[in-house]
């Protein structure tokens, strides 16, 4: 278990989705991956598959047509996951606030953990945001850990928690 946690902290893979932003934050996100800022120093890789991702970087004010795709992507990312809203328009709408085809930010659709301001967000700001997201990822990972008094049951059942034995454990206490 510990080895997975360590791996996650050392190499968080990111998933990027554009929900109707102006491309400004998206190209800055790509610039973060290129030699000047080279975020692969932290072991971060941009992945196209949500099932391999830990950090979800979302740009754009969430247009009505993107909403369902965003929700699907969020549900496919395995726990623990952190959502980072990059750029003003994904935080609260920015200049697109109160337009007819826009949802006023990512938080209206899925829970957001870190808000990165800036229009467009600088690479430095994005790196700051991701560093903050890493702390949250670690905390969330810890929260997901199995409590010590249940560890015996889990080990006995090879990873899965059995309902019967859980109830039995509760009854005993």
């Amino acid at each position, binding site marked *: 278990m510990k080895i997975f946690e360590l791996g996650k902290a050392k190499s968080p893979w990111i998933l990027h989705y554009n929900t109707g932003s102006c491309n400004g934050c998206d190209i800055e996100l790509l610039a973060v991956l290129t030699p000047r800022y080279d975020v692969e*120093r932290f072991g971060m890789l941009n992945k196209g598959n949500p099932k391999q991702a830990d950090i979800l970087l979302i740009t754009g004010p969430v247009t009505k047509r993107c909403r369902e795709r965003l929700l699907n992507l969020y549900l496919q990312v395995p726990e623990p996951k952190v959502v980072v809203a990059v750029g*003003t328009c994904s935080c*609260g709408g920015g200049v697109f606030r109160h337009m007819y085809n826009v949802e006023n930010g990512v938080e209206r659709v899925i829970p957001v*953990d870190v808000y990165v*301001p800036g*229009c467009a967000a600088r690479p430095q700001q994005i790196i700051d945001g991701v*560093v903050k997201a890493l702390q949250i990822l670690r905390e969330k990972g810890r929260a997901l850990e199995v409590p010590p008094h249940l560890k015996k049951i889990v080990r006995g059942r090879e990873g899965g928690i059995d309902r019967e034995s859980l109830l039995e454990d509760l009854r005993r206490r």
Partner: protein
Amino acid sequence: MLKMFITSIKNLFRKPVTQLYPYEKYEPFDGYRGKISWEKGKCTFCMKCGRACTSGAIKILIYSGETKEWVWNPIQCIYCGECVRSCPFGALIQEKYYASPITKGEKLDWSEIEKKAGRLEDRWRRQLRDRRGKRKSE
């Protein structure tokens, strides 16, 4: 082939382009459009900045009496600098440092503030109209 070899030898001795950002401090250029700071002493609450703001990131709350509040939302601002140029008293300054990311707890409830500002402005306008009406009748 030879050219490739020369280039790779050159690159061996070149300084790396990578900025080790979080470990190495980064200094933005002069004139970078960063955070907006507000000086209370100079401000007269003329509301010009609120009207000039493109994305509605500045709200001025005028409560009854003399209590007034200037609110700026860093995650709603588009950093165009229009408010700084519109301020006739120089109460707003654009710093050259960018705003840092915030987490859920530090966030302002902006839709609540928007509603509140609208309500307060309506009331303030009504009061102003009443006062003018009174003065005319006198």
